[in-house]
């Protein structure tokens, strides 16, 4: 009954404030796309992937900026065609929307203050007694339980909020994916992040560390999208991510 979305366009929803997956900038440099309805240009890893999908489907890419909580309702109400916003295809989310194959996989790190004792940690168990948190509604928050004796703090709404909490030392560290940690370090030189070798880090199911495209349940385009994503090799992905990390505004100029 819903007015069919334009066949010529692919409307993609994201927040444009989760660097390096997506961010807001002022011009179309580095391949950023103008946000629908004004408000600047959106660039980042997600946008590069979205471009490839749009191209593959033969449609014009339209970037719609929506708050996180509005993304899934928007795709279900067919206000947008897809969510490409660094969203992980968790079991629970799969009940509400369909997910494509993953288009990125990353590892989990802990962002800490560079001058703190935890900066030298090598295993997650070194964070015993540390005050650790993560973003609300992400699996990041659940993996904290894998640290024995950790002081798990209340989850937080956003990365910037966690950054403030960390710099005021209300927390000792927060869980992030590697690209996000790089961004945070870029503009907050007093931060560093701790990454872990195989076996010493967090155990996470592949779909948790992966991010995928969300579309409305039953949308037939899923196979076409998967086919396009399949053509982007692991090396290509890493190259795109490296480029995104390099060109994100926080590191630019």
């Amino acid at each position, binding site marked *: 009954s819903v007015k069919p979305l334009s066949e010529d366009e692919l409307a993609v929803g994201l927040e444009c404030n989760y660097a390096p997956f997506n961010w807001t900038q002022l011009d179309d440099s580095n391949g950023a796309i103008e946000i629908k309805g004004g408000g600047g240009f959106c660039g980042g890893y997600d946008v590069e992937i979205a471009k490839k999908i749009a191209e593959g489907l033969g449609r014009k890419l339209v970037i719609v900026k929506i708050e996180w909580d509005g993304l899934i309702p928007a795709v279900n109400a067919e206000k947008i065609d897809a969510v490409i916003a660094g969203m992980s295809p968790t079991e629970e989310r799969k009940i509400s929307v369909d997910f494509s194959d993953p288009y990125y996989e990353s590892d989990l790190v802990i962002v800490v203050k560079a001058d703190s004792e935890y900066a030298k940690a090598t295993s997650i168990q070194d964070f015993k007694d540390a005050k650790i948190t993560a973003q609300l509604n992400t699996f990041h928050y659940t993996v904290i339980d894998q640290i024995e004796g950790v002081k798990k703090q209340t989850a937080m709404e956003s990365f*910037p909020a966690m950054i403030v909490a960390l710099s005021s030392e209300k927390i000792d560290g927060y869980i992030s994916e590697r690209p996000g940690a790089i961004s945070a370090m870029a503009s907050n030189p007093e931060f560093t992040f701790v990454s872990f070798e195989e076996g010493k880090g967090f155990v996470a199911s592949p779909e948790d560390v992966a991010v995928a495209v969300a579309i409305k349940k039953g949308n037939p385009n899923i196979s076409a999208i998967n086919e396009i994503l399949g053509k982007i090799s692991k090396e290509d992905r890493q190259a795109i991510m490296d480029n995104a990390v390099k060109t994100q505004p926080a590191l630019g100029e």
Partner: protein
Amino acid sequence: MPTSFFEWVAFFVNKYGLFFIQGAGTTIFIASIGTIAGFAIGLAVAVVRTIPVEENDSLARKLFYKFVRFIFVAYIEIFRGTPMIVQAMVIYYGSAELWGLDMSPMVAALFIVSINTGAYMAEIARGGIISIDKGQYEAAQSIGMTHSQTMVNIILPQAIRNILPSIGNEFVVNIKDTSVLNVISVTELFFMSKSAAGTYMRYFEVFFITCLIYFVLTFSVTRLLLFVERKLEGPDSFVIHGSQTVPQAVIKGGRE
């Protein structure tokens, strides 16, 4: 890259200044329309709710008013009682999903803010109306004015002055509450700030700027309303017309 707080602030102002202004424009636009429309809705609801039902009215009429009042109370309670973010999502996404209604985000935003403000304004207006001396109402009735004539010509002009401070509150709240509209992809000031903050992962600097802008907006609104308040109080002096003792005199009277 900037290093100190103020360098960062300057950096953001340079880089995102235009967007902040754009966002502030959207914010003030939605807040203004929403407050004005909400004010009108609130007054209308309060006026209808205060229609006296007389004992000798016909049963049909009594039932009708009972029903209308119930509807209004339900409206107020529901729209005050639920978060605007939920109202926004239900109205914008829900209407699309259920009835295939294709509102633009801006239209939805204006609608939501107005109807939401209206619920609060209805209560504020009621407070204003009960604050006016009953004698004013009776005097208007005694020369044959209807309820709505009385309200429009006598009661509301006096009530509005008393509730202006609360209307100011509502306006200020609306300026800030538009931020929840990001969820239906309206890009206003707060969302702009979030983008800037998220892109650079700097919170305090960006929100320092945002707060300044908010502050300037709300401060101007407050001053404007204070000006209106003074205007509504009327001039301090009046002109004595064609005084017989002092012919042609234009004398002014004042008040404390």
